[in-house]
């Protein structure tokens, strides 16, 4: 399983550090993931 570690909390770091994460997440087949999880019905939204 892929895992990416970045340090946050400072302004104006190298702005491309999240590009890799966004590419990894967007390239995932979410429908396949849902099938793997078994339940396709989305659970009720939880608020923070």
């Amino acid at each position, binding site marked *: *399983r*892929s*895992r*990416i*570690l*970045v*340090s*946050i*909390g*400072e*302004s*104006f770091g190298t702005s491309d550090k999240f590009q890799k*994460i966004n590419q*990894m*997440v967007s390239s*995932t087949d979410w429908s396949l*993931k849902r099938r*793997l*999880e078994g339940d396709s019905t989305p659970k009720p939204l939880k*608020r*923070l």
Partner: protein
Amino acid sequence: RYQELQREVSELSEAEDKLDELISKCNLQLRLLTEDSNNKKLGYVRCQDLRNTVDPPDQIVMVIRAPPETQMTVSEPSQGYQISLKSTNGPIDVFLCPED
């Protein structure tokens, strides 16, 4: 041709040194800028600014304000995606940007 090439390489060396000097100057300027107390106070965005930058605008926008050197780990367990935040320099602020 060899002498011509030697001259080119030494010019490139000067150009690289100049870039190194400008990069370190720029880093210093940026640090002084963000550490200036007035700029610290005026260095903010509004929720509406954030809303205007996401497409479609009705998404969930979670804002994370973390102390320096906070570690963010994004991992892909079997289910969904997991993001963990760990700070050793104080509490992390997380809040949702209101829709309106």
